[in-house]
């Protein structure tokens, strides 16, 4: 009896003990650091003294500057250019990935032979690093050695495709490479969604004489709304965080033509040491992700309870 009581005691605190490292990590390294980044964005204290562990006389009297850094950020042309680029990239990347993903999911859902092999081929770019994708597309899109030269060499002498060196068009090359990498992933999500639909409804509709087209537009696609929502959230998340692909493909150039918030944040924080701008731009990125994510998590968690 005493033994069982004692073991019950151990089992009472053991789960908490096991979870405690992760609780500590989450508290300090996620929420604590978000708080510190937020603090940096509204104060003028030099970073090093705030975080000083060796200096016993930590001076906590920093200058609270309110939203000054935010105002300064949105007066910065480079930041506004980066936001605009993210807007163009995000809309096209998400939109085209969703359309391509849906079309190919529906096509693959027609009792295709070798479906497994095709699916594997469509999805493999997702296993690659964005750096690898960027390296390859940088070369293919380079007008002097890539597609443009190839087309000219085989006879289309007036063919031009020099978007990657054209400041007006360079952001669209990021879209091309991004879609190549991520559309197969969207297809996989949609295909899983299609397979999860109750087939009895579809059969009933077909018995009533509904065409394949109207089965898709009236029944299947509307019932996949949660899947669209998930895919949208994941793609938006990829878009806002996009950094590696652009670093490898264009390095943010030509000039600042393909600059995005993630690159802005990296360069202001770690090459220019303007921590206030770095922290402020990071907070804007966090708010962007939160604006998309909170409605999503809310609906997911509410759905789970029902």
């Amino acid at each position, binding site marked *: 009896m005493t033994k069982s009581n004692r*073991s019950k005691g151990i*089992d009472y605190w*053991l789960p908490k003990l*096991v*979870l405690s490292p*992760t*609780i500590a990590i*989450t508290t300090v390294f*996620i929420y604590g*650091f*978000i708080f*510190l*980044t937020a603090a940096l964005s509204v104060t003028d204290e030099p970073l090093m003294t705030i*975080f000083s562990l060796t200096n016993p006389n930590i001076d906590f009297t920093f200058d609270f500057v309110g939203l000054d850094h935010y105002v300064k950020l949105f007066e910065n042309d480079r930041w506004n250019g980066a936001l605009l680029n993210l807007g163009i990239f995000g809309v096209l990347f998400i939109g085209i990935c969703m359309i391509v993903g849906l079309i*190919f999911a529906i*096509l693959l859902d*027609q009792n295709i032979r070798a479906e497994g092999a*095709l699916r*594997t*081929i*469509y999805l*493999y770019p*997702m*296993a*690659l*690093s964005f*750096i690898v994708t960027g*390296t*390859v597309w940088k*070369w*293919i899109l380079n007008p002097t*050695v*890539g597609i443009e*030269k190839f087309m000219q060499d085989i006879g289309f002498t007036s063919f031009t495709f020099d978007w990657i060196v054209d400041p007006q068009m360079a952001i669209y090359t990021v879209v091309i490479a991004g879609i*190549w990498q991520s559309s*197969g992933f969207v297809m996989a*999500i949609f295909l*899983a969604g299609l397979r999860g639909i109750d087939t009895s409804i579809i059969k009933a509709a077909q018995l009533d004489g509904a065409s394949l087209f109207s089965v898709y537009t009236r029944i299947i696609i509307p019932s996949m709304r949660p*899947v669209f929502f*998930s895919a949208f*959230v*994941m793609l938006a998340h990829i878009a*806002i*965080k996009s950094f590696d692909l652009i670093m*490898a493909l264009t390095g943010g150039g030509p000039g600042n033509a393909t600059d995005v918030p993630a690159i802005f*944040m*990296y360069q202001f924080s*770690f090459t220019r040491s303007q921590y206030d701008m770095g*922290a402020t731009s*990071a*907070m804007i*990125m*966090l708010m*962007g*992700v939160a604006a998309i*994510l909170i409605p999503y*998590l809310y609906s997911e*968690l509410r*759905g*789970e309870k029902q």
Partner: protein
Amino acid sequence: MSIKVQDTRYKDITARSILYAVLVIAAIYYLAPLFLMIITSFRSMDEIRVGQLIEWPKSFSLDAWAAAWNQVQIGAREELGLKPYFINSIKMVIPSVAISTLLGALNGYVLSFWKFRGSEIFFALLLAGCFLPFQAILLPHSIVLGKLQLTGTVSGLVMTHVIYGVAFTTLFFRNYYVNLPGELIKAAKLDGAGFWMIFYRIILPLSTPIIVVSVIWQFTQIWNDFLFGVVFSDPDSQPVTVGLNNMVNSTTGEKRYNVDMAGAIIAALPTVIVYVVAGKYFVRGLTAGSVKG
């Protein structure tokens, strides 16, 4: 009457042919860059200079591969080629994947079978960490790594990847465990089995599929990471993604596309192999957060 039947059958066959044609063209589009990378990596620069973008190698040469692996000068470091970066990636990825998966399994176990007051709220808070844009923690994290004297070390990268990977691994294991029959655990508890006994004897033997999902997901994420690598490491500890990017963007001398492509394949090979061998589990990891059930 019979003609009409024939008509629809013809229509069916044409529709199927178009369908397959579209699917195959799409497959070619996805495969083309990989194919180009591979054939270019076997061509010599002389051939590339005078030849075409798409051309079969005249003589299969491994020179570009050797150059990318241990001959090309990357930055100012003494050791040549991608090899030292590749080794850094291996040294980084193995402990990061092992520790984060183990932590995730334990967390998932607690959050599924040993719930306590507040554990659900904690899970929701942790879940938000899956979507954290890392820019929001980069500055404080770099200061802390500096204070711990871990900046520019592989251990620093391991620590970083474990910390920011544990949200995902916990999510995987927790979502897998909540679908296991709870009676099993209740019965074991009534029989007097304790926390560790249940974990080792009942849960762990059932966990193989989700361990595979977690290991593959973490391996791919950490191997392909660039942001942490470029911010927190120095030339002696940089992973292969950073090495490749430095190699491709170094401006000295003529651009050697065959070497660039061989380097890109070297950097991509480990994750592509994992994908080919265990693609099913890779897809499960990708869709774990998006499609419920």
